[in-house]
């Protein structure tokens, strides 16, 4: 399979890099301070292919902390998630992923285009 870094990157709007945290698989976002956050509002926003490639490269380099990094266009420019964040949903006692607002759907809501 082609490495994410070798794939052609097309950016059509504001985008973030998302991945899963290695030890527990929780969805995380790359921040501007070269770290990760579970809150989409902390994510570094990129708007050009070169920026996205660089952000993805540093994300993929963190092989211990995160897994499966990819670029995901956001649906909002206001840095707020279109739905509740995974962190919020995770805190709902006994949540079974059934509340639709917790159904984070990157391909549809973010229209991944790598």
């Amino acid at each position, binding site marked *: 399979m082609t490495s994410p870094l070798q794939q052609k990157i097309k950016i059509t709007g504001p985008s973030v890099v998302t991945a899963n945290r290695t030890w527990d*698989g929780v*969805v995380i976002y790359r921040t501007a301070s070269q770290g990760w956050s579970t809150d989409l509002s902390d994510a570094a926003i990129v708007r050009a292919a070169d920026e996205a490639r660089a952000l993805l490269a540093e994300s993929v380099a963190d092989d211990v902390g995160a*897994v499966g990094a990819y670029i995901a266009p956001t649906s909002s420019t206001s840095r707020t998630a279109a739905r509740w964040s995974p962190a919020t949903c995770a805190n709902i006692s006994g949540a079974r992923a059934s509340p639709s607002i917790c159904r984070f*759907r990157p391909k549809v809501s973010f229209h991944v285009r790598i």
Partner: protein
Amino acid sequence: MYAYDEIDRTLINERVTEFRDQVKRRLSGELTEDEFKSLRLMNGVYLQLHAYMFRVAIPYGTLSSEQMRRLAHVARRYDRGYGHFTTRQNIQFNWIKLAELPNALADLAEVGIHAMQTSGNCTRNITADQWAGVAPGEIEDPRIWAELLRQYSTLHPEFSFLPRKFKFAITASEHDRAAIKVHDIGLRLHKNAEGETGFEVLVGGGLGRTPFIGKTIKSFVPGRDLLSYVEAILRVYNQYGRRDNIYKARIKILVHELGIEKFAKEVEDEWLQMRDSALTLDDADVEDIRSRFTYPAYEKLPHMPDELKKAAHDPQFEAWRKNSVALHKVPGYAIVTVSLKPVGGPPGDATADQMDAVADLADKYSFGEIRVGHEQNLALPHVARRDLPVLWRALDRIGLATPNVNLVSDIIACPGLDYCSLANARSIPIAQELTRRFANHETANLIGRLHINISGCINACGHHHVGHIGILGVEKNGEEFYQITIGGRADENAAVGTLIGPAVPYGEVADVVEDIVEAYLALRARPDELFIDTVKRLGVEPFRERVYATR
């Protein structure tokens, strides 16, 4: 139930130790994700949209109450309190943490459960008729042969890196509940003219991107030759199966491209070289496996006990009994299907509390045994008919007495885009909405047997191709659309459904299904003509007209 021997227990425990070390090295950075991926997949660990997913094998769909309680424990302690029973007699936990997985695996190993053969390009979990050993008219219990295949194929060095995954299913009944015709190898136990028991072997069935119904490669293979014959098939596949294109790597493509006659000749040539080898099974081998299966000490009980006569006056009980209770091979007993399809619920999901409760009910009413079917329901295989009323009330108290088995709301659905990283569209909310639309039991009963299958992508984990109504999620310009097929079926007359027209948006799927069902009710020749038979008689055109006339 099958009792594992020392070899099995050692194998499972060693796997836990190995995996614990692999996870430790991954979390420390000693192993990269690329290095670790194949190791985690060998233990059923996938990375999905929100978290890791842990798939656990339930070989031939048989669980003890103790094993079910341990699954509940894993759901409660390591996940979010529920699990999802799949279309291949597995259970998936969707929120598991990698760091805790070795402990979960160790807890499961204590009761003989593991996650081997649930992922990777190996022989996957061997599946069987969920009524195996109890269905009337069955040739013999197919699980004995499934267990032989499990032992033979587990960690088989030659077949651990096949061109692609490889799935077996086995049945010993006339009516196929194991969907053998849509498996890489399907096995049907039957007797030849001399009264000898053997197998009809089908090959090259499968769904996914390119669906094929399996073809009979040999109409009778004696039991003693089962392992050598399937090994011959696997060898031919391993040699000629494509490894350059994942979409063309399954055996069904090889069988299709070579043609069944040429493929069969290759297998025959291979088999003749190895037929009389160490793989030949003698009676003692089979008896050894058979002896490790324990069967209930059934009592002599009446077919129509007083308890059942009395309960028959309760229309709610009768509604449940008619759809959920099947004849057992032993008079006085019944097979009870436990619906995991509540109105508005995700198909195939069970909470930890429900799993514990089913385990208790199995101990009380089913000799401690539970089955898992590919339709994503459970079954209690040995229930005394006198206990049916009290069992029904107990199931009802825990939300597991929905009287919809085999009806329109008994939907098969993959996890879809709510969980799966491969999906293009959601499956679960479509299923939930359809169960609400058809929540009225009188309506569902009027419609009769109708299987709806939903997949969130072309990989077809929801077996949409073989649903009487099949729903396939696709993506169009970033929006969820759904293709609708009708006329598919997964039984002994398996067929791939026919597309009725252009894909419809998410918001219209339930309306379209209602239109199809309404058309069926108007078109059926008589009240007992099933949906699938009406489609066969009339073709898809009348349904297409009904659906698209106003769209």
